[in-house]
């Protein structure tokens, strides 16, 4: 088992992630909030990221949020992203779901459609 450093580029946040866990799980354990936490099952797309550098493997993810083509380009859901080296990632909320959870939007917790 190895421990890698994950860097979220837009916030500059760094945290550790074991090789046997997913990035989002490590982030949540360490109380970080640079990637939003959704279903944690690869299904809702809230934690969608671009991997800028590093090696990794992915568990099963909804193709509604990560198409096979996007997966080749380094798009992943952080809840299904297992590092094999240090990683640099950046949040890229899905284009498919306008108005869905944006990182750091806690100041406005009520989505527009509910107000």
């Amino acid at each position, binding site marked *: 088992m190895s421990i890698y450093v994950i860097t979220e580029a837009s916030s500059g946040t760094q945290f550790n992630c074991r090789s046997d866990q997913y990035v989002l799980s490590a982030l949540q354990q360490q109380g970080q909030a640079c990637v939003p*936490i*959704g*279903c*944690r*099952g*690869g*299904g*809702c797309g*809230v934690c969608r990221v671009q991997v800028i550098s590093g090696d990794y493997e992915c568990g*099963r*993810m*909804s*193709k*509604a949020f990560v198409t096979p083509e996007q997966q080749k380009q380094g798009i992943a859901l952080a809840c299904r992203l297992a590092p094999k080296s240090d990683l640099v990632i950046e949040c890229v909320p899905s284009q498919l*779901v*306008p*108005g*869905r*959870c944006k990182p750091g*939007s*806690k100041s406005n*917790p*009520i*989505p*527009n*459609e*509910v*107000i």
Partner: protein
Amino acid sequence: MKKGIIRPGHVQLRVLDIEAALKHYVDLLGLIETDRDEQGRVYLKAWSEVDKFSVVLCEADEPGMDFMAFKVVDEATLIQLEKDLIEFGVEVKNLPAGDLKDCGRRVQFVSPSGHCFELYADKKYTGKWGIHETNPEAWPRGLRGMKAVRFDHCLFYGDELAATYDLFVNVLGFFLTEQVLDPEGNRIAQFLSLSMKAHDIAFIQHEEKGKFHHASFYLETWEDILRAADLISMTDTPLDIGPTRHGLTHGKTIYFFDPSGNRTEVFADGDYVYPDHNPITWKAEDLGKAIFYHDRELNERFLTVLT
């Protein structure tokens, strides 16, 4: 039940990995596997249900809900409701008996909110699991996990709530039990029932059609909800929120996610209704209390994480 619809009958959920899903729905939630078909679908039921299945799992590339079905009293009612649906203006699709194992023909349609529903009259009656119809014991031995009592309802997110209300109330015979109104009087949430239950189905306004919020299963007591919370921790299952109480319906509840990100609720108690009860109204500006009666604060994940 004034148009002959009895109750929720089944829901078909898409999962990314069927074996992982079975650990959730069977080992953790406590549903019982009753069959599988050649498409790889797995049929499940809760112990107190009398028909063969209430949950169907199928493996797919995207999680979410394929359809939710309601059981009607007989074939004549099914024929009438099919006519009424066509007259209302929704497209109706007929699925032959046996398309779902041991289920009669189904009449399928899409609501204005973008969700697929179906009606059917027949499904194989297998009786409550593990207990007899004569001198039945209180509960069956050998139940697992949370020991879910029944599949109870679903909550859907979508748009065109007014047209969806029209369909469910005026065509299908549901009645409004609770609603959330914005300051202009627009209904942004509607809870509908066929029975004494506070809801058999619910919709919340959302800009995208056809989204699935959760499938809910009934437990008997608050103690059972706390025990469910313990099991969620023991199995390291992603928790959404709870144990807590809702303002809407006053149910005691906990929400968690299946391994594909579909949300599951188990709840206990809550309000009862008769068809002559006035609907309960919650104000949108008090939505925090309406949804989470204790915290009285909205939780962004609960409102926006959908499949």
